């Protein structure tokens, strides 16, 4: 048994990119408070605004950027302070969004994990993921955004899993998290088309988010985004190899008929509980997960798989690959899978 650690849990968090690490270390040296009017403070402010401009360029975003501590805070900020009240979310949202919605406000998904855009034609704020964190399914947000707008509503896109990999969807508000694309944990952002869509509540970030700004984090986020997503084509080939192997061993690919991001997949191993799989993979130093990291260990059935009507949801694990994942690593995982499934 090889004992090297094999990390296949990139949906939970990603290793920091060297460029992001460099930027963060440089940023730690610019330690003055960006709100201070003295020279040192103004230099920190200039660096912060530079990071903001670079984030916008890298994302192709022409609206505003409000730095937050992460996507959870960005989503909370959007939902709590949007000028339009929350009208609907999808049933497969991350807990950070789902829990704000009453059961009647949760739009169902079909077996492919997709929302019917016609159902999203609602006035008010509609919150939806670009990429599902458990299955990798890509929601057709451009269609949904058009439907929401036709009804006079606003679309909040949770792009925690998609940002830095896919083009941003045509949404009014977008939440992103740096540590999902090779940046550091502790920094995220809420992108908003225009500030008028939010009620300010004072403090930094033009009155939309109080707290001294995490400048090293913002610089590292910009650097991570600038590394681009050219590796995704390679990741798609890795995933093909993974899924061919899983199918050969009798495994089932969840939502295989849907368009999915190359980095996240959910796989069922018939007859073996996901808890048992996790323990066995962990014993071989392979990091995978059952659903999101946040709900790991709860052993609740995944609300995502339940909403999609996946039979055998209790036997599904999530494998999420990253830019450094190699073909031999996929083979090592498949080897372990095969032994476990046998």
């Amino acid at each position, binding site marked *: 048994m090889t004992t090297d650690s094999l990390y296949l849990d990139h949906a939970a968090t990603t290793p920091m990119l060297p460029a992001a690490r460099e930027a963060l270390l440089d940023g730690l040296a610019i330690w003055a408070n960006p709100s201070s009017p*003295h020279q040192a403070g103004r230099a920190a402010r200039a660096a912060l605004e530079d990071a903001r401009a670079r984030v916008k360029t890298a994302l192709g975003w022409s609206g505003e950027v409000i730095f937050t501590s992460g996507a959870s805070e960005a989503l909370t900020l959007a939902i709590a302070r949007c000028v339009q009240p929350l009208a609907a979310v999808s049933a497969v949202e991350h807990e950070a969004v789902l829990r*704000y919605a009453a059961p009647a406000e949760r739009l169902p998904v079909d077996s492919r994990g997709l929302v019917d855009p016609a159902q999203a034609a609602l006035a008010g704020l509609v919150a939806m993921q670009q990429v599902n964190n458990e299955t990798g399914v890509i929601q057709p947000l451009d269609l949904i955004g058009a439907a929401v707008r036709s009804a006079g509503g606003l679309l909040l896109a949770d792009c925690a899993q998609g940002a830095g990999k896919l083009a941003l969807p045509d949404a009014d508000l977008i939440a992103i998290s740096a540590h999902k694309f090779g940046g550091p944990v502790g920094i995220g952002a809420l992108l908003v088309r225009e500030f008028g869509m939010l009620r300010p509540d004072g403090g930094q970030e033009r009155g939309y988010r109080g707290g001294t700004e995490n400048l*090293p984090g913002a610089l590292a986020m910009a650097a991570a985004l600038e590394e681009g997503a050219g590796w995704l084509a390679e990741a798609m080939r890795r995933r093909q190899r993974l899924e061919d192997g899983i199918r050969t061993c009798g495994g089932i690919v969840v939502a295989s008929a849907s368009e999915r991001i190359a980095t996240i997949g959910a796989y069922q191993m018939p007859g073996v509980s996901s808890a048992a799989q996790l323990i066995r993979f962990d014993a071989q130093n392979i990091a995978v997960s059952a659903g999101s990291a946040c709900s790991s260990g709860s052993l609740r059935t995944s609300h995502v798989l339940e909403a999609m009507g996946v039979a055998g949801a209790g036997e599904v694990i999530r494998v999420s690959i990253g830019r450094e994942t190699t073909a031999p690593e996929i083979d090592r995982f498949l080897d372990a899978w095969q032994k476990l499934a046998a």
Partner: protein
Amino acid sequence: MIYLDNQSTTPLAPEAREAMLQWLGGPESGGFANPHSPHRPGRAAAAAVEVARDQIVALLPLGGRVIFTGSATEALNLAICGSRAARIATSTIEHAAVLDIARASGAVLDELPVDRAGLVDADVPIAPGTSLVAVMQVNNEIGTIQPVAGLAARAHAAGALFLCDAVQGAGKLAPPEGADLIALSAHKLYGPKGIGALWVRDGVELAPLIHGGGQEAGLRSGTLSPALCAGFGAAAALAQARMTEDAANVTALWDIARDILCHWTLNGSAEARWHGNLNLRRAEEYGPLDVARLMSELGDIAFSAGSACASGSGRPSHVLRALGLSDMQAKSSIRLGFGRYTTRDEVIEACQRIESAAIDQGA
């Protein structure tokens, strides 16, 4: 540059930076995992978070737990909104974060006045029905140390919880005795920006503000950064180890600055204070001082006229006004903030140049 603005933020301690490095790893290191993942690298990251938590807990009273947040502002939001207080009493010299949050919470607000020395009376009456009393440990603008133990007792006698904004005092002074909720910021104690904490006394119930993955026992969702936690923890441990030494350093610098700036009047109590804060106004007989001009003429000396957050607003400081200072007096005031890394030579040079520049203004 001579940095005399340690209330606004502090330099990152080399020890804190070092502690962060191993958690800023790339794929080769394993030092990047999500601390909420149950797999092996996740558990190692979670262990680092818990070590850091213990280091911060050690700065605080017994019988409570530490919830990591993104900043002290967020910690104060969690405390004030999360306690669902219907009636809140705050001192008139609280940080804008506390005053703004209390106002935004929709609670009935009562103000606790300060005397000319910038101190709340420990026996101040608390209105019946008050559910939360918030008074800071050390004021960020004038450095006065509030009688928080007495105020906590008053709050408890009135059936209220006591929240202490200890951002300026944590790691420098003994923790506020009797508090139920204590807010801290890493970057004010030589740790990194982007992380704060709320200490919650056992048995105190709060409702979360940020929902999601349910981290921090459901009180604060969002992936924790092991690097930021480790930096905060190392900074806390260092502050505790150096508490006496750090205090002696700033007290010595304070004495030097007071000697050189003898034509200035101290704002706030000379005794009940953290000596890393020297808030002064030009003595009246020398005429008014243009602080903006002073700051621009001394561009390589970083000092301030009040809090960083309120900088540039042009409004006179609400803290100095609360002391009974006129607008003119408040606007003639400067804040010099000494810290662990401030040297004697820096203070001598800065103070001499401030004095000359004031004289050149005819002030």
